[in-house]
């Protein structure tokens, strides 16, 4: 008989994804035999392993399945960010899942599945792969949002689901149109075809690009497709909101980078529309956040606003925008994760903290208060914290590609941002003698993750090169379009 030869599929480029997938499966199966903590640990371990395997792939530029899965440096850079975010989420869940009534292994399982999906997006080499990743991510996201057995959570889940599904549908239709225009689903193929396009197909291409933009708009919460964001982030358990607002968003942006920075980068018209959407997002997100009374919802709206700043980087040329996006995503993940971790640590109910309740937090929980203040400063873009550099790069990207007006709008709206961040921060430091309203008790894992986030924000703010030097090389980003 013929020996059991394995087919020669290059496994190395898929390894990071496979590892997280294994983690997910392990969580699913072992969940019946092990306590949830152990499952979470397993998940963390698999994340770590996947990170290691990514490290080995750096600068190799390997691909699998005829380029539909490619482990180029861009993918790895974003992948690392994704892993960090997920690890933080799991760490936080270790301490709060019990309170959030999420203390069962399915949580980790679905979370890991979502991570796998995001990684697939980051590594995707053609539209179908990207779509698969996107959907795995989104579907797991819907489940996560609904997982907690409470009215708010279910409601947010339903809203998330309905709008997300609509977004996916539009996106898929966009894919169809783009395919119709270019006759290829492969990113490089599309890029090649869209550069020399006969007049006949260009309307199709434009329509497809716009629909893709719209679909992604739903996924990353660009205005006017952002309505679900506050309800979902506000209604879901805080751990889940943390995950959704960091990892899932990063994944969606990875997709946008792949599609718009790579495949469609020389397709006409979408850039202007994106510029308008970005401006709208900045205005809406920041102004709406001004009027929030609940800190969690405030963070939700600020997440919308941050989406606007992130989208600025996509307005730039690949050489400038790519590294800016990667760096901003890293910082955004760390900061948001840390901030929401603090909320998760201190909240009494999953509704998060009322802003008024945060008065004098500094005198009750100095550590958390200072950490939160640093996160807010970083989100507001104050040096020496990393948020400043990130924001600066975003502005620069938009500016250099000629979108000065968007940059100016961003600058003006970030004043509003500064105001609502600073109001909270200042409140925390105002003396206050009412009894503590926070949830008592030790939370080592959260403290650890918060410390991690804050320290890295500060260090990266003072020495951005530690992270930026890795992604600064423009070749990484120009080859997204296969050039």
């Amino acid at each position: 008989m013929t020996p059991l030869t394995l087919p020669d599929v290059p496994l190395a480029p898929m390894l990071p994804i496979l590892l997280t997938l294994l983690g997910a499966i392990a969580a699913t199966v072992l969940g019946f035999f092990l306590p949830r903590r152990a499952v979470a640990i397993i998940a963390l371990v698999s994340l770590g392993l996947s990170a290691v395997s990514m490290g080995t792939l750096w600068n190799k530029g390997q691909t699998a399945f005829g380029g539909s899965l490619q482990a180029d440096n861009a993918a790895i850079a974003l992948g690392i960010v994704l892993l960090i975010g997920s690890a933080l989420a799991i760490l936080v869940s270790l301490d709060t899942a019990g309170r959030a009534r999420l203390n069962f292994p399915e949580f980790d399982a679905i979370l890991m599945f979502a991570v796998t999906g995001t990684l697939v997006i980051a590594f995707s080499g053609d539209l179908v792969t990207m779509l698969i990743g996107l959907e795995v991510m989104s579907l797991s996201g819907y489940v996560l949002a609904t997982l907690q057995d409470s009215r708010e959570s279910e409601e947010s889940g339903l809203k998330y689901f309905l709008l997300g599904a609509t977004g996916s549908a539009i996106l898929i239709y966009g894919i169809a149109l783009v395919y119709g225009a270019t006759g290829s689903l492969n990113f490089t193929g599309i890029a090649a075809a869209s550069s020399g396009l006969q007049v006949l197909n260009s309307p199709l291409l434009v329509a497809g690009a716009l629909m893709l933009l719209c679909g992604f708009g739903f996924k990353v919460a660009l205005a006017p497709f952002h309505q679900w964001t506050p309800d979902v982030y506000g209604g879901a358990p805080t751990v889940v909101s943390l995950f959704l607002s960091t990892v899932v968003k990063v994944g969606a942006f990875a997709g946008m980078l792949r599609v718009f920075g790579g495949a469609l980068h020389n397709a006409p018209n979408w850039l202007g529309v994106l510029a308008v959407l970005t401006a709208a997002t900045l205005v809406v997100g920041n102004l709406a956040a001004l009027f929030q009374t609940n800190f969690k919802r405030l963070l939700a709206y600020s997440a919308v606003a941050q989406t606007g700043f992130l989208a600025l980087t996509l307005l730039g040329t690949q050489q400038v925008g790519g590294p800016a996006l990667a760096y901003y995503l890293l910082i955004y993940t760390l900061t948001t994760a840390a901030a929401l971790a603090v909320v998760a640590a201190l909240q009494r109910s999953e509704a998060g903290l009322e802003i008024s309740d945060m008065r004098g937090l500094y005198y009750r929980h100095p550590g958390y208060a200072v950490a939160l203040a640093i996160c807010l400063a970083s989100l507001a873009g104050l040096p020496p914290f990393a948020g400043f550099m990130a924001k600066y790069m975003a502005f620069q990207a938009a500016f250099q590609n000629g979108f000065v007006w968007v940059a100016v709008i961003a600058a003006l709206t970030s004043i509003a941002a500064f105001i609502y961040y600073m109001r909270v921060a200042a409140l925390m430091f105002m003396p206050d003698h009412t009894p503590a309203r926070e949830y008592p008790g030790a939370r080592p894992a959260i403290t650890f993750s918060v410390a991690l986030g804050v320290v890295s924000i500060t260090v990266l703010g003072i020495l951005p090169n530690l992270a930026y030097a890795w992604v600064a090389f423009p070749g990484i980003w120009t080859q997204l379009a296969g050039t």
Partner: protein
Amino acid sequence: MVSTNSYIILSGLLFAIGMFGVLTRRTAVMVFLSVELMLNAANLSLVAFARAWGDLTAQTAVFIVMTLAAAEVAIGLAIIVAIFRKRETTNVDDLAAMKG
């Protein structure tokens, strides 16, 4: 042999109907059905284009999309049922524990 254009027009119509449904319908199930309609419109145009370009990759894409649709059905119905069993309605407007 029907020309590709007519397929595309048809799928465009389907998509438009679905979009309209999403925007106007108020019960979660109907919104959901409209979304499925949009998905199938996408499938139709994918197949049509695949025939026009004469390659099969898009047809595999159709398979994928079908799976996605199925998965969405499973999860979406699960969510809707969960909510429906907790309160008598799935009317999107009645879901107002949180004011957006």
